[in-house]
């Protein structure tokens, strides 16, 4: 550790002596006893701490310059991308650089980069090279087509799973079977992982159309079959207007809302 620090100190002293910058070759020449690994490490840590900056000189060689203390403070916390951009603007000097957005537009028109909307936060855009596929987090996964929640697609999948389970009737189907079936039918261009199929089937369970069955024996996959106890479409309570009334709490005899004047009753009793 002490050795590394001394390497860093040496580097900094060297840079201070040469305010116009020190090339990489000059560094290795000035510190003969230091192996290249250690030197590289020292350079990297100084870079990260913003004690020195990396520049390219006119002959395209890498040049290191020390960063004055105040300047270091200014740059603290900036990300690499921001620093890079800063350097570009600095290099432009007095003439400055054309607008950033304009640059992006030019690149986009030349089809070099594309913008991808984040599904969780549609107002943020992310730019990447045109050839790349955006990662799963950005697009939301299989359920989002063009960043829209694809209910149609999901419904199709649900119904397919349901009909498969229904066809198997008394025998329960395992998760693996259903997944294989869905994949074989080629419903989706995107590859559906087994967790996705599981989520789809669970929505059927929550709808009360499919039951989850504990597997017997050694299998540890869940099995599914048609629900035995259907949920009735209506109950005596909901057949009466009071059962589905949004203002049931405010209804009282003689009040503004009362059973005698209730409009829902009027509608119910209109024959």
């Amino acid at each position: 550790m002490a050795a590394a620090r001394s390497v860093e100190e040496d580097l900094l002293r060297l840079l201070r002596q040469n305010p116009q910058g020190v090339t990489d070759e000059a560094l290795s020449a000035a510190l003969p006893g230091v192996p290249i690994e250690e030197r590289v490490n020292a350079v990297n840590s100084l870079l990260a701490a913003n004690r020195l900056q990396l520049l390219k000189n006119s002959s395209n060689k890498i040049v290191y310059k020390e960063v004055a203390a105040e300047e270091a403070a200014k740059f603290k916390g900036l990300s690499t991308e921001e620093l890079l951009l800063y350097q570009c603007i600095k290099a432009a000097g007095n003439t400055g650089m054309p607008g950033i957005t304009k640059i992006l537009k030019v690149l986009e028109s030349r089809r070099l980069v594309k913008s991808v909307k984040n599904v969780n936060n549609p107002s943020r855009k992310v730019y990447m090279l045109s050839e790349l596929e955006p990662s799963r987090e950005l697009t939301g996964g299989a359920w989002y087509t063009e960043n829209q929640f694809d209910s149609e697609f999901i419904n199709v999948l649900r119904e397919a799973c349901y009909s498969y389970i229904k066809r198997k009737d008394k025998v329960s189907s395992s998760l693996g079977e259903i997944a294989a079936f869905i994949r074989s039918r080629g419903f989706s261009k995107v590859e559906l992982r087994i967790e996705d199929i599981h989520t789809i089937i669970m929505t059927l369970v929550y709808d009360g159309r499919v039951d989850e069955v504990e597997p017997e024996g050694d299998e540890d996959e869940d099995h599914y079959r048609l629900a035995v106890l259907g949920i009735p479409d209506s109950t005596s309570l909901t057949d009466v207007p009071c059962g589905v009334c949004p203002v049931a709490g405010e209804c009282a005899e003689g009040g503004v809302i009362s059973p005698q004047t209730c409009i829902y009753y009027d509608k119910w009793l209109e024959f």
Partner: protein
Amino acid sequence: MSSRKQFACDLAIRLVQEQYGDAVGGVFKYLAAKGQLPLGEIIRGTGLSASLVKQALLILIQQNCVSVYLQPGEESFRGARPSFHVYECDLGRVLQIIRHSRFLLHIRDEAGEVAEHIVAQLLQDGRLRMDQVLGGVAARMGKAQEEVADTIRNTFISLVQAHYVERAPLCNAPPPTIRPHPNSVKARKKPAGGGEAFAAEQGAASRTLEELAIEKARFKVPADLALQMFGTTTAGGGNAAAAAALGGGAEAAADGGGGGDGATGGGGGVKRRAEDELELLAVPKSAPPAKKARIRAGTARADVVTSTPGAGPGAGPGAGRSSGGGAAGGGAGPSSPVAAAEPPVVLWRVNNDEFNRVFRHQAMVGLIREKFDEDAAAVVTAMLATARPHEASVKEERSVPLSEGEIETTVGRLTTAGVLEALPQQPVSAVLRTLASDPFEMFSLAATGMQGSPMYVINSQRVIDLIMLKQIEAVVKSRYDIAGLRVFRLLALRGQLEQKQIADLAMLPQKDTRELLYRMLAGGFVLLQDIPKSADRAPSRSFYTWRVSVTAICEATAGQLFRATGRVHQRLKFEMEKEKELLGLLESAKEAKTVNFTLTTAQRQAVNRLKRMSEVMETSLQHLDEMIAVFNDF
């Protein structure tokens, strides 16, 4: 926020008011609000005249809407304080009024037309003596009393033995102790022996012995009735001594032997007082009960021996005993400790509990049939039939353990009796094993019996829970669509979840999920809990989780059912009131028996509309009552 009890009270008061009029309704309302009250306080509280209150009370007692108890007198330093009668409204029985037609339908299917007539007569008049039953039913059947007396009597006895009909409790049982809710009492140490508190506790415990005595007598067929069945000629009077002895032998004298004797004396005393209080002025509605009370008093008068109205009849054994059962009281002397003798008059009434028990079993078997298959339903019917004699109350949580052998014999018995359709396909033991392995734990395997055969227990409460859960899910589906149902079941199966997790698992768009959750929160179906990350509950720094509590929702729905029934009832009354004139016109036409009377087309339309509307509403009331039964009485 009104509670279930409050909605139930409102509905009960409405029902009483509709059936028996405003004055009676007023008295009932006051009693429902105040609990157990003596007569004087009722008169003061309702502000009605004493005679009106008395008549109203008589009607209510006659119709079993109000129970009467005798608060025994106490010895105190100032001298013996007299006992007095206390009145308490019986909400449970009043709420069963809507279910009466279901009772009749069931009894007709099970026991035939004569039984239906008997039950109908009892439901109409509340409580009746045997001879009144005979007269009324004969009139209903349109035949002369002599021809049908025997059939009626036979059917009647079988109804009593099946527990559909019970004895009306006497008016001098002590009032049930009002026990404070366990939450309101700080945990207290058991009072030391010998102290006053200890004595009070012991007293409360022993009082229930008298309740036990009443319970034992509830379904006893009186000896003279049984004798009549077997062909003895005299009706009670001459054979009274033999009857009393038989009666004494037939009834196991409980420790309340003294209580029993005191009861008869008290019974006579009460009825005499009722007669004293009764005015000869007969208000039309109260005429029948008033007359009956006088008849009651009239027959009792001959039997009463020594009790004076003022003295506490229950005061101590030995004092003022009248060996009841007959004027020939000399036969069974006052020193005989055995004879818990028959009260002079026995009144009978319908036992709602038995009907509700039957309906409960039907609902349970229905669920099993849906969830499993017909065989399972048959086996469960047999199990319930086997366990029935041991059920102490309607709302049993679980049954007694039943061995496989018993169940098999009952299955066989029921199949031959024609109750079950056909022999089950699978053997009974296999069906039982399938039932017991169901994850909802509706049946459990209890200990293994003596010969190594397994014993099973029905967890009735779990079965009812499942029925209620299905109903609740249906309510959620109707109110909040399939998305709401999905969220509800998701939370019920997975516990506490954050909004984002809910949206992901249910595969619903985030915006929709948020709206739906808040709507369901307003409806009381989900609960929201904040879990703060920081010391202050800043919303940006807290987790918000959602969950459902099925028990809470069941309670809430039970209350909502009463409320909805009340409102349907109100609306029906209102609609009838609107067309009062038209109805009056029809009534007068019917009475005058005119066949042709002109109605304008508007009136005709109005009549049709009224008819359809009242049909719809009455059927709704019946359907609602079915659901009320599931949520409240089962």
